[in-house]
């Protein structure tokens, strides 16, 4: 790894440690999910009903760490902040590994 690449990785790790801002700031300003990403419960409140097709598909997949949060819906802010850092580190590890392997394979067969 070159010195420049090391520097970039350090920058990424610092970013990962700062990710709790992504839950703390929205919490502070009482902002929730992005537009159009509401769960079925919230939609019921907004519309008075849950669209039929949406209801069928909404639980199509059970992600192991929903919303980057290990603590479930009632988790404290501290736990959410810690979950965010852990998810950030896990996420960059997995993404970097997969992209590294895929592109390594393609580059090898190129030039």
């Amino acid at each position: 790894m070159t010195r420049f690449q090391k520097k970039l990785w350090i920058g990424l790790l610092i970013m990962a440690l700062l990710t709790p801002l992504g839950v703390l700031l929205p919490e502070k300003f009482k902002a929730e999910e992005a537009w159009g990403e509401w769960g079925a419960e919230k939609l019921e409140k907004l519309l008075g009903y849950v669209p039929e097709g949406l209801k069928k598909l909404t639980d199509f997949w059970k992600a192991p760490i929903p919303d980057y949060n290990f603590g479930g819906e009632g988790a404290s802010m501290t736990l959410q902040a810690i979950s965010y850092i852990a998810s950030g580190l896990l996420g960059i590890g997995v993404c970097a590994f997969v992209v590294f392997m895929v592109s390594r394979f393609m580059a090898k067969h190129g030039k």
Partner: protein
Amino acid sequence: MHIPDGYLGPQTYLPLYGVSIGFWAIAQKKLKKQLSLKHVPYLAMAAAFSFLIMMFNIPIPGGTTGHAVGAGIIAILLGPWTAVLAVSVVLIIQALLFGDGGITAVGANCFNMAVVMPFVSYWIFKLIKGKTAGRPRLAVAAFLAGDLGLVVAALITAVEFGIQPLIATGVNGRPLYAPYPLSIAVPAMVLEHVFPFGIVEGFVTMLLLKYFLKHEPDLVYAVLDPSTNK
């Protein structure tokens, strides 16, 4: 901008899977031809960067949040086809592990954020940059590339949401999937991405380009000699 499961009907998510798979196939062909080994570590970092920046949810009035994506700067630094690969992997992992974006919507989300966004950003950057390489002009080009790339991606996402009530309604006339029509979805999504999210994306794109031009100028795909730049 991560569309969850249930917001798009099969008439929309299936064709968008097809489109994204088409782009992945072309990306694979292009990268096999042009990707050099020295870029591989940067691709991995690009994916990590995009994953992280999407975790920085920015609250806005009205009780919603949004975030930058990073696809524009990846396209400028490493090329648009590289961005297709890196950001697609990120979106798939976000959906599988963290439930951010639906599984049925992976094709749509990849099309919006990993295809539309990097290409729009890349074209805008090249267009504004022109043949000159003056630093102020590159900065403006990078800012607008990031900004408008995100805004156009948001517009396309809003159109996908907004056409759902036109395509599929139940027996009682209620929409089956995303409930809001184009007249609500488009202004809601586009305005918040014009301000503030696009501005954030623009600054991130501009500052990172500046950093790379200073420290590793030979890496920057979009400002290399056009003859090596297919």
